[in-house]
């Protein structure tokens, strides 16, 4: 399959590779492709990073992923590689309010340790030193000498600008309405602004991947859900801003705001004709409750905003990151609700899948779409991920 990307000159109405989706995964892929000299065009239905890519907790610690090592290797380099700030900060803290939380954190941390990352337990005194406003009821914490956090919105924009600096092209406000095929291969896409030709197509459009893949006759099982976060006014800066605990995740931004999310997420009707609402829900009061419990010393901080974003999940909660066999010039890149932190690595993987046909630095075989070949048709109902109400209009 390698060698399908031709080194022909830039075409005004097309590109060697077209990436559908200007989120963090698609733009990272676009940047990697552009910097490797491939003529690439990213098509985005709205504004870059408008959806979940710009509305997440910003964590860069995902030890369960085969891309973890590359994620850890790349993040400290990203500001200089991109030439624009991502606000990346190293290390993460985990605060457990009970034994069950601690056990869960330790299971994930053990995965990181297996891959060479280090950590240290923190007693209450050490925890209090690092996070002065933490609860006295915390049973302990863990300092992870890996991972960290970055500013999602700034990172998405950095990818977009860095891609353009390498002659990659971005076309916003362009919706893909169809995919053109000839002799079993993708030859281009139809959009509300006309047709764009390509040699290789990358689908990195989050929840919309299912609909786009269906145009190729390919089933990508995805279910959409709403996730939400609250954000407070700025507080004095912690030494390490990435602090999770008490059933919520998030970070203190470099500006000092606390941005936290979590909660029983709402599964959205996948067949909705209208785009699902991104508005926050009553969950925000429960987020505030958990954040005030975790950080009683910050309970006076005023909540000034909330966000909600729509993410997609596969049935096993793991990415679909593969090059298809039919058509053999299409790449699927769904990160299954965990896309931001892994984006420097996932973009590089997508570049190699698009350019070379395979990923050289990580074994992605377990993330191939083929694993769902025998998935029962009613998987969504069996997972309990469907809703039959029309709440939220």
């Amino acid at each position: 399959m390698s060698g399908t990307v031709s080194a022909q000159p830039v075409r005004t109405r097309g590109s060697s590779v077209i990436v559908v989706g200007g989120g963090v995964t698609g733009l990272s892929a676009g940047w990697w492709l552009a910097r490797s000299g491939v003529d690439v065009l990213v098509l985005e239905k709205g504004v870059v990073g408008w959806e979940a890519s710009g509305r997440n907790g910003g964590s860069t610690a995902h030890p369960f992923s085969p891309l973890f090592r590359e994620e850890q290797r790349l993040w400290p380099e990203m500001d200089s590689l991109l030439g624009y700030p991502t606000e990346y900060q190293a290390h993460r803290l985990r605060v457990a309010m009970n034994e069950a939380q601690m056990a869960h954190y330790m299971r994930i941390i053990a995965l990181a340790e297996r891959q060479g990352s280090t950590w240290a337990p923190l007693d209450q005194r050490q925890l209090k030193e690092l996070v002065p406003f933490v609860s006295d009821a915390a049973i302990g914490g863990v300092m992870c000498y890996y991972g960290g956090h970055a500013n999602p919105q700034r990172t998405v924009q950095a990818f977009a600008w860095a891609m353009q600096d390498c002659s990659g092209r971005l076309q916003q406000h362009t919706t893909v309405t169809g995919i053109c095929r000839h002799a079993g291969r993708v030859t281009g896409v139809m959009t509300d602004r006309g047709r764009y030709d390509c040699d290789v197509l990358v689908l990195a459009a989050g929840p919309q991947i299912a609909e786009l893949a269906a145009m190729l006759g390919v089933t990508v099982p995805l279910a959409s859900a709403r996730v939400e976060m609250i954000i407070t006014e700025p507080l004095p800066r912690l030494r390490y801003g990435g602090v999770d605990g008490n059933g919520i995740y998030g970070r203190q931004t470099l500006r000092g705001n606390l941005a936290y999310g979590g909660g029983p997420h709402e599964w959205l009707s996948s067949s909705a004709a209208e785009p699902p609402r991104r508005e926050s829900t009553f969950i925000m009061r429960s987020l505030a409750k958990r954040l005030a419990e975790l950080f009683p010393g910050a309970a006076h901080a005023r909540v000034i905003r909330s966000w909600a974003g729509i993410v997609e999940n596969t049935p096993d909660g793991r990415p679909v990151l593969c090059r298809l066999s039919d058509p053999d010039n299409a790449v699927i890149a769904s990160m299954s609700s965990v896309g931001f932190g892994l984006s420097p690595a996932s973009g590089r993987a997508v570049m190699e899948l698009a350019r070379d046909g395979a990923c050289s630095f990580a074994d992605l075989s377990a993330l191939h779409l083929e694993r769902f070949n025998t998935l029962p048709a009613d998987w969504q109902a069996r997972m309990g991920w469907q809703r039959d109400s029309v709440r939220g209009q």
Partner: protein
Amino acid sequence: MIGNDPARLDAAKRPTPSAHVPLLVVGAGAAGLAAALAAAAAGVTTMLIEEQPVSADLMALDVPLHFGQRMARGAGNAALMERVLDSSPGLAEAYERGIDVQLGVCVWGIFPGSAAAHDAVPQLVGLADGARSWFVSCDRVIVASGARDLAIGFPGWEKPGVMGAQAALQLMQRYDAFTGTRMLVLGGGPLALAVVEAASAKGLTVVAAIEAEASSRHDDSAERFQECGVAFYGGWVIEEARGSVEVESAAIVRLDETGKPAAGSRTVLDCDTIVMSVGTVPNVELLDSIGCRMQFEPLRGGWVPSRGNDTATSTPNVYAIGDCAGLGADPTEEGRRVARAVAASLGMTAFAEAEPRIDRPHAADRSVQRARVWMQAQIAASGLDVCVCQCEEVTRRELIDLRPPRYLRATVPDAAPGGRNLQALAADGPLNQDQVKRLTRAGMGLCQGRRCRDQIQMLLEAAATSEPGAVPLARHRPPVRPLPLKVLAADEESAALRDHWVAWFNIATQWLAHWEAKPVPFAAPGQAPVIGDSE
């Protein structure tokens, strides 16, 4: 056992509201009061929420109006309640008519209900006072949230003593708690005149009213200000507010025919208060935060909700009336109209017949146009190195150059790559204030953008050389009042919500090594959720 039935789980997760009312009216200004009284007269049980008296804490943040630290401290809440009641005779009538009037309570969010036949649940309205927040459910909401102050920056506008006209009027007329004594009024229209008249009635000194527009083609400003004994300067703008901490004086300058400050025209006026009275802005934050369709109406204050003839917004069961739905409407007429529509929608057949459409033209409001004249004049007089966002300390120039925010430039020394300015961003597609605010942080602060939103809008319009309204409205998000975590915190939470709480999704295989194949984790009935991790 709720199990995994999502519909039942969704329903069980919902918080139990403190109360249910058929109709909740947000705001007890002229329109809200008229609506509540008319609805009550029609037999609709009504709750009327009024955030006044606003707590001193919120006032200090310039929320919901630009109070500029000119409110008297020390008046007790009970005393302020009395004053609010005394200043608004309709409120006493509302109490007498059995309306559940709640003063000093703000509405910070509205959350849609369910229209599902088997699981119809009404919408939730988030309320808060200084100590706690709670939900009330209701069948219909009428939003009558009024208008807020329009601010246009100049050097020194962050000093205590610079405030908005709405705030000044409230402090003078409603709270009787205004601490200014010598006032400079910016603006020459009806709003400025109202401020001057209120100040005169209080025996305060107004040192001058200045208006950026050279000729007052649209009103007889000069004469009317002079009748109040106030000097009027047509074609002048403020160059700077001066004072060591608070406002002590103001330098004003005349603009010449080319729009530039005229040499030698600078005049310094002693004053302790500068009231920005150029215009007002419909208070659409609550309506926009719930996704009501909006439209730009240049003669009605700018962005307002799209409404049907019955004042219904695009969001089911949500109505908008008064200034928040467009400046210049007759509040009493809108109040009557919406009450009729609500009564009819609740099945009161006596009101089923819609009121005939009234095509009476609204009084044109020139806030949008005046604001742009002033913005241009202030840029001519004071340049671009003027703060536009006070909370996040962003200047006009930093906004136009799309400069990374100050905290970032302090942390990352080379965080200011050149060339990526507003014009460059505009080349990639229409400018969007939300995208710009994420990059510059302008509008991301504690006042929730009340003081800078409109200025940013105008600067983006200018950068894109587009018409007023061409740049989309920056989205509002709940809570539309800054609420402390401990106030917003849910003290009552359903067992279903508590038991099904996860940090991320409840998918066991997501937290195991992805390079080891695992079958899809179809849940066994009653299986406990995994905690989930961070993203």
